[in-house]
């Protein structure tokens, strides 16, 4: 019998439907005959977690198994958490409302570093020991996957095992081993030992880390020979054959991405040097237009959604985009289903497409030049020229658009104040382009928004050795840029450098950070990515009390020879290649995209996608 949260509690919290479940297409199962109960946890609120495509896929994939019941769990918002703690209500799953501490698995998806305290908080709220070493046979296994798992080390103390890469196959392999293990009533370690031989499974407790006096790693080795020295990520070779849900849960309450999402391809041919996704998801693998049409059709029928979004890292790079969008518009228009096309490069084709497909006001178009000068754009391998940008915005203005958002990063390697000034200049040129557009064509009320985020060096990118600018420097740069923006039509937004600083620490952190995370959690840090809950002072206190210098992780330049905390993870892309790319970056040389020319990154080991086309 599940936990029954009283109406008195639900009525006292914001958006109670976050906690009640029962949505259309949510999976209901009879517990008889279920061997595995899996709590799929997203360490953020319902509206954010429910928008995540990976969770939708794996939730329905696990529930395809007759022996498994996968349920969803989200971080209760602070008001609900307070009530739960006050009334001793442990964290429960949405479908059955059963406490997740009774489950076989608690699985977290790691989408961003600043969700780590929520993981600890959720385990604590569930009544499960937060430290892996303190769990016994009475407790569920706690596992994790997702993009942040590629540097699993900061979470090594809390997670029993990680699954590296795309989850569709590996998660089933792990479940199969579990069923056998459970039948035999063997010790907990035995299960972990068995799955450690599955490619992509990483069990942190089976590895021993030694450090040099300066805090860097001196050795990282498996404690027994049978455990793999390197853990290679998993990929799905053929996206047309892999499982994709034909039903997805339709929430009752508005969520961040409240629409059907169909995934065009995985990976990205571009290789922008700051972008982790551009390297960890290699090689590029496309789904066929036919299969995408089939998926869209089925999902539209089973959900009743009024919008379909085509998702990928760079929609314009999908080779069958015209065929797909023609097909979708033809089928979906009579049904009054909108197409949403994020990550689309702006050109005449895409503008025409947006005109046809999207019933939205012509308010805002987004461009991401990322850097203000050609020199710096070459450093980061962002193949966009000023000419491209001005041509695109002019086209957009002529098409009636009047709002443009420009995204940049501050603190990129080799950045000078000239590069920053270039951001303002680019903004002014966009304003100029609007003024040069005939009045009868352009939309009314120009608005240009320049947004800058702070560069966060990420593992498995050519910039993984680079220091991040200090908070002070980043702030100076923001003030400088602000002073250079002269046009009244330009609005400038910037990110808090404090949050970027913490991201940089945990993105490239090692195992020593586990105690900082625990300390920060004890000091009440949670929902760090939500501005109103981010407690920078508490974080700095936690670092001080643990005797750990945060700038060692964020602001230190690494040498090529240093053992990096994620070196035992193999994403296909080789360290040598990243080194080469780093050198080229410093020389301001660009690397062509995968489709133009193979640059030998190493992803061919997977023998899939673009590498074998």
């Amino acid at each position, binding site marked *: 019998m599940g936990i029954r949260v009283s109406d008195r509690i639900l009525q006292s919290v914001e958006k109670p439907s976050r906690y009640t479940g*029962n949505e259309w297409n949510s999976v209901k199962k009879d517990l008889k005959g279920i061997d595995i109960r899996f709590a799929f946890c997203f360490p953020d609120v319902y509206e954010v977690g429910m928008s995540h495509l990976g969770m939708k896929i794996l939730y329905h994939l696990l529930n395809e198994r007759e022996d498994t019941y996968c349920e969803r769990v989200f971080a209760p918002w602070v008001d609900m958490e307070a009530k739960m703690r006050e*009334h001793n209500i442990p964290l429960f799953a949405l479908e059955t409302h059963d406490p997740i501490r009774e489950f076989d698995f608690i699985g977290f998806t790691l989408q961003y570093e600043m969700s780590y305290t929520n993981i600890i908080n959720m385990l604590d709220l569930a009544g499960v020991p937060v430290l892996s070493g303190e769990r016994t046979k009475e407790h569920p296994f706690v596992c994790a996957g997702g993009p942040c798992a590629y540097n699993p080390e900061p979470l090594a103390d809390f997670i029993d095992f990680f699954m590296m890469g795309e989850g569709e196959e590996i998660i089933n392999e792990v479940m199969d081993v579990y069923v056998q293990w459970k039948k035999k009533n063997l010790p907990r370690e035995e299960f972990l030992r068995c799955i450690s031989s599955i490619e992509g499974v990483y069990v942190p407790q089976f590895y021993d880390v030694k450090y040099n006096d300066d805090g860097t790693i001196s050795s990282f080795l498996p404690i027994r020979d049978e455990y793999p020295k390197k853990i290679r990520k998993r990929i799905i070779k053929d996206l047309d054959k892999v499982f994709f849900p034909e039903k997805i849960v339709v929430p009752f309450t508005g969520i961040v991405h409240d629409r059907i999402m169909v995934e065009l391809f995985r990976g990205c041919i571009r290789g922008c040097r700051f972008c982790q996704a551009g390297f960890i998801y290699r090689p590029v693998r496309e789904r066929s237009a036919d299969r995408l049409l089939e998926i869209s059709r089925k999902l539209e029928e089973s959900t*009743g959604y009024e919008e379909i979004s085509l998702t990928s890292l760079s929609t314009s790079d999908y080779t069958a985009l015209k065929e797909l969008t023609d097909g979708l518009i033809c089928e979906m228009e009579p049904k009054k289903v909108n197409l949403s096309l994020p990550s689309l490069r702006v050109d005449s084709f895409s503008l025409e497409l947006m005109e046809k497909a999207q019933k939205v006001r012509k308010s805002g178009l987004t461009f991401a030049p990322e850097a203000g000068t050609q020199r710096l754009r070459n450093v980061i391998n962002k193949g966009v020229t000023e000419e491209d940008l001005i041509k695109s915005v002019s086209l957009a203005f002529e098409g009636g658009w009047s709002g443009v958002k420009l995204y940049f990063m501050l603190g990129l390697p080799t950045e000078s104040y000239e590069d920053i000034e270039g951001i303002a200049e680019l903004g002014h040129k966009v304003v100029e382009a609007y003024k040069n557009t005939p009045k009868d064509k352009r939309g009314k009320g120009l608005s240009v928004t320049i947004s800058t985020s702070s560069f966060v060096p990420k593992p498995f990118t050519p910039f993984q050795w680079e220091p991040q600018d200090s908070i002070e420097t980043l702030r100076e740069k923001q003030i400088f840029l602000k002073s250079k923006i002269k046009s009244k039509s330009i609005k400038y937004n910037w990110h808090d450098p404090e949050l970027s600083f913490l991201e940089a620490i945990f993105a490239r952190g090692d195992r020593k950070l586990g105690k900082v995370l625990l300390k920060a959690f004890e000091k009440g840090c949670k929902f760090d990515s939500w501005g109103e809950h981010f407690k920078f002072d508490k974080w700095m206190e936690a670092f001080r009390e643990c005797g750990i210098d945060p700038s060692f992780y964020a602001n230190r330049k690494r040498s090529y020879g240093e053992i990096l905390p994620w070196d035992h993870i193999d994403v296909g892309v080789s360290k040598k290649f990243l080194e080469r790319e780093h050198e080229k970056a410093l020389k301001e040389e660009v690397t062509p995209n995968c489709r133009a020319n193979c640059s030998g990154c190493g992803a061919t080991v997977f023998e899939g996608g673009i590498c074998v086309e």
Partner: protein
Amino acid sequence: MLSSIRVKFVRGEEVKYISHLDLMKMFERAVRRSNIPIAYSKGFNPHPHIVFGLPLSVGVTSDSEYADFELEKDMKPEEFAQRLNQNLPEGVKIVEAKKNNTNSNIMAQVAGALYEVLVLADGKVEIEDLKSKLSKFLENKEIFTEKESKGKIKSVDIRPMIYNVAVTTVKNTEAGVLESTKTDFTEDGCKNLWILKYVEKLKAEDDLFKQTDESAVFCFTMLLAAGSTANLKPEFVIAAFGRYSGINFEILKIHRSGLFTKNKDNLTDPLGGRVLLSV
């Protein structure tokens, strides 16, 4: 040729936390899933033509909600209801559907609503005493209460919007035994199944309720003005009566058990036009 179907539906405990806007969206998606030939509005951003009788506050259940669906093509009401029901989540159910032959939509026609309000009185209160206080309260020609509107607090006379109020005890409940969901203003002891079942639920899951004295639990039944011209929420009546009687009431649950259209001075059934009550 457009045709319109009017349905009566239930909104149960499972879905009572959905806001009115989200409920509308839920119906739109259910209609799409059912392949019902719904008519869309013209214009840049077409919307399905669905009109709801009266929004229901978050947390309130109802066995008498109404909505009009305009269709592109004729459809048998029974088939419409059956197809839609297959695509509605647990807790929402069409219980009746008919061709809508009226000229205006349900929202414009709604004039009255019947509510059951389960309350917990603070302190020792006898039902006879409560009943006499209530009838004295209703003898008032004017009942002023403060209402917030557009950020300003206004004093409003709610008496004209109160058609009838009765109060009963909620005791000796054996949910399941009772069949009737009809409410009788003269009955002694609450007979509304939704309320009785809810009391069982409270007994099971609300720690505070478990400790309360059952004789302090009462159910108010009230027929109030509703709709676009005059609308009174039951909370205001409880608050006003609480002030008048000096008794503090905690509202445990509100359930809507009737929604009525108006024909001259009579409240009528939105589906049949039958006269139900004179006001």
